[in-house]
């Protein structure tokens, strides 16, 4: 009988998506820790995961909780004026993101938490609104609205997009 895949295959298949989600929710500085804690927790629990579980939704659920932990810990540490320099230093440390990409990253960072989560889990992780609702709470419709509001804000605050995409379709 063939059971669960080796965990290595889970990391290979879902590692990039979880990293993108962690980076979108937390920014580059804290994303590595969130990714590491997500996969370590997932590996601990993996033998007990039902065979028919949606592994990606399960991983994003864990990443969501880890991101909340990281955000709370950061809030406890934070000194009120540290926000802007921290973000800049982290962006610089993350390497050669083009201006356009870092503009979008900044725009996502500025979204309210619910919108950011809806955008990241639906558009980056590809989860249906109902699955996102299971993770963040509330209804699928509420998630859909939060995602739409988030996208609308990104369109306004991410100015280079229109120029690079040409005429709107």
């Amino acid at each position: 009988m063939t059971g669960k895949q080796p965990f290595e295959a889970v990391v290979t298949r879902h590692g990039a998506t979880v990293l993108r989600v962690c980076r979108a929710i937390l920014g580059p500085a804290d994303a590595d820790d969130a990714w590491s804690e997500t996969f370590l927790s997932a590996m601990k629990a993996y033998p007990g995961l039902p065979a028919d579980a949606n592994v990606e939704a399960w991983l994003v659920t864990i990443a969501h909780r880890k991101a909340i932990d990281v955000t709370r810990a950061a809030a406890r540490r934070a000194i009120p004026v540290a926000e802007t320099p921290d973000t800049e230093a982290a962006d610089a440390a993350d390497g050669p993101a083009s201006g356009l990409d870092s503009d979008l990253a900044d725009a996502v960072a500025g979204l309210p938490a619910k919108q950011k989560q809806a955008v990241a889990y639906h558009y980056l992780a590809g989860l249906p609104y109902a699955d996102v609702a299971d993770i963040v709470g509330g209804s699928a419709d509420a998630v859909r609205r939060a995602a739409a509001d988030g996208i609308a804000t990104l369109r306004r605050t991410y100015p280079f997009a229109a120029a690079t995409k040409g005429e709107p379709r």
Partner: protein
Amino acid sequence: MNADDLARDLVRAFPGTPGDLRRLHDRLAAAAERDGILDVAYRTVDSPVGPLLLAATEAGLVRVAYASEGHDTVLQALADRISPRILDAPARLDATARELDEYFTGRRRSFDLPLDWRLSDGFRRVVLSRLPEIGYGHTASYAAVANLAGHPKAVRAAATACATNPLPVVVPCHRVIYSDGRIGRYLGGPDAKRTLLALETAA
């Protein structure tokens, strides 16, 4: 800009680049080892008999697999038989890789590694555990091995034990051949068996 364009831009803005993922993977492997949840660690090494998959539990080396067995198939079997908490984590297999390299370059005649025998039961395990007594560069017949394992009549069972050895090369089932000189079954195929025997007689 529609939502699809934006989704594409989001993927670019929040990269999951291979270099970052390799670094994070290695960090995960180290943390899993530290926390005692790395049930099976594995790596592959190149050898004169092709790439070998090496897998170890915390107890010791549990599986050596030839490419002809299908490494993915073997890993899935380890997930089913032992635990799915399996990672490509070379550190646990450093000593194994070093001793194999010494063996394949003629600088080592026996292995000094902790072995996890859990994939062999009963008589098969008894047979396999006696094989290191066949010295480097020597061969023994299946009948002699059955005798060594305490059941002189169980020649066929001894042959099956050798043919299904989960720890080939390290546990030297390649040194067991038919008394009439035929080479017999081998997990890595007859060519691999001949290569190992030639290596040992040349050294």
